[in-house]
């Protein structure tokens, strides 16, 4: 077997590699292609037959989700929660990461290690505890409740990401500034933060996407329509007996647009975050 594979000529090996890539690529693009095309089909066409290209392209599904379903409201809710969470987390995490990587104080090592543990705690473990706490705080069905719940994942994650980033940049300029009479905070503001912009951008993208794409906590913590998040709003197009495929695909297309745009604009940062171990999934 091994010897046989070794005798395969390089050209054939490349053909096989391309075939593998092509098959996997097809598997990825297949559902996405039909999601996009179905969003532009009339209901009759969706259920009656298989068409690769919409026979009569229509925007009726988009009009439906915008006018008849409250998708704009859900998008607004999600945007409010995602932006607030991102803003809070970036400030809190950059400060903490700076202290945990650069300052010397008792308890630092233990906390630096703790960050990783907390980040690794799976969400399913925290679901009920978080629900109980949010209810007790009276924050169920509120933006603040959703923000607070998202903070609990995003802060450890972002702190961990920023610690890794800060460790990768040299402390020499900082030390020089301290010797020249800068205080710690001045050096943080004028030297460390400007140097960490790529890391901060990466962290912000991951947090924003994380909140935007979050489903389980949005489902449990915001059950009223006024605070519903887009993930829950879209999954409601599914009833156990009947579901609206056209509007659902149109809504999905709208909901994934910011994430995809952000990713295209900042692919470089996303790849660097990937290398830093930014997972969940």
């Amino acid at each position, binding site marked *: 077997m091994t*010897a046989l594979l070794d005798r395969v000529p390089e050209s054939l090996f490349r053909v096989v590699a391309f075939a593998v890539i092509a098959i*996997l690529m097809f598997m990825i693009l297949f559902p996405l292609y*039909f999601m996009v095309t179905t969003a532009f089909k009339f209901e009759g066409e969706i259920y009656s037959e298989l068409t690769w290209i919409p026979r009569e392209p229509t925007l009726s599904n988009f009009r439906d989700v915008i006018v008849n379903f409250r998708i704009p409201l859900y998008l607004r809710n999600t945007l409010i929660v995602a932006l607030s969470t991102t803003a809070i987390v970036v400030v809190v*995490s950059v400060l903490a990461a700076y202290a945990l990587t650069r300052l*010397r104080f008792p*308890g630092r090592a233990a906390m630096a290690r703790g960050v990783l543990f907390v980040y690794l705690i799976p969400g*399913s473990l925290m679901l009920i505890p978080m629900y109980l706490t949010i209810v007790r705080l009276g924050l169920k069905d509120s933006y603040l409740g959703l923000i607070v719940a998202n903070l609990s994942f995003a802060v450890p994650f972002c702190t961990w990401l920023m610690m890794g980033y800060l460790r990768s940049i040299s402390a020499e300029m900082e030390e020089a500034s301290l010797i020249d009479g800068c205080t710690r*905070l001045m050096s943080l503001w004028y030297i460390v933060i400007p140097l960490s912009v790529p890391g901060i951008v990466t962290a912000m993208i991951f947090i924003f996407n994380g909140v935007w794409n979050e489903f389980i906590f949005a489902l449990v913590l915001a059950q009223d329509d006024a605070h519903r998040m887009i993930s829950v709003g879209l999954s409601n197009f599914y009833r156990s007996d009947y579901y609206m495929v056209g509007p659902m695909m149109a809504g999905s297309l709208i909901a994934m647009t910011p994430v995809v745009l952000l990713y295209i604009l900042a692919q470089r940062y996303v790849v660097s975050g990937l290398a830093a171990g930014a997972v969940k999934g």
Partner: protein
Amino acid sequence: MSQQTLSQPLASSRAESRRRRSPFAGDVVLGWLLVAPALLIVLGMVGYPFLEAIRISFTDRMVGRGPGEWVGLDNYAYILGWPDFGEMVVRTVLITIAAVILKAVVGLILATALNQSFRGRDVLRGVFMLPWILPTYIIVLVWRWIFDGQTGLLNQILVSFGLLAENYPFLARSGSAVSLLIFVLVWKGYPFYALTFLAGMQTISSELYDAAKVDGAGRMARFFYITLPGIRQVMGVVLLLSTIWTMNSLEIPMLLTGGGPSNATEVFPLLTYHLAMQNFRLGEGAALPIMMLPIIALLVLGVASYMDKEATE
């Protein structure tokens, strides 16, 4: 390393710094001040809820019915005594293992294929990141529609090509439902494996391969003796992390099958949700994750020590 360079003046000239104020003297107060907001969030929103959940797991608290009564270990006994419990654990473990192995195999194959140099590789890499960046709930909703027994796309295709005589309810038969759950887990997860494996492969020096070729090592020998050892570290972290996330994946089974048909895909996180949020039995819902804690803690400890070592090296 940065911290050592910073700390050296402090350590070496302690006597001197007592006389002349060291620039690092304020670190203790400042350090705690800067960490305080993050620490408060973690203690308040992770630490406290977790302790509270342990307490509630000893009560019969239900949704909207006040604090509940102390029932000792009743919730744990109830879950353990439940005939389906063992099956649920086995099911969770088997689905996790199957999904993780498949993700690793497909990811490794794709990484190897992408590790060839050819034009347009960066575009391809971008496409392969799509499952990883797209919202999980959208991916699952699309697949669910494709697999649907009435109007699903897969049925339409299979029937129109004459491969199926009539629609097949893929998600309503336990065998196919379990397979399709694993399929969606793998579809969503393997690109991350491939991209991290690829990143690892690209750090391996090409000189190693050249030297091996000179020594007459074939393609397979080079793969097993250079490539695999070269990405062992990355593979270890990714496999452990992915095992944690896969085992705790709630969104995918919830939206794809909802645990059905007849509990065939009822995995541990989903059961937690059903106990607490559908049966409103918060005590039992809190107890179940605590019972799974030893397994999860072991995995988390493993991967944390791995990643910690890597980060501080």
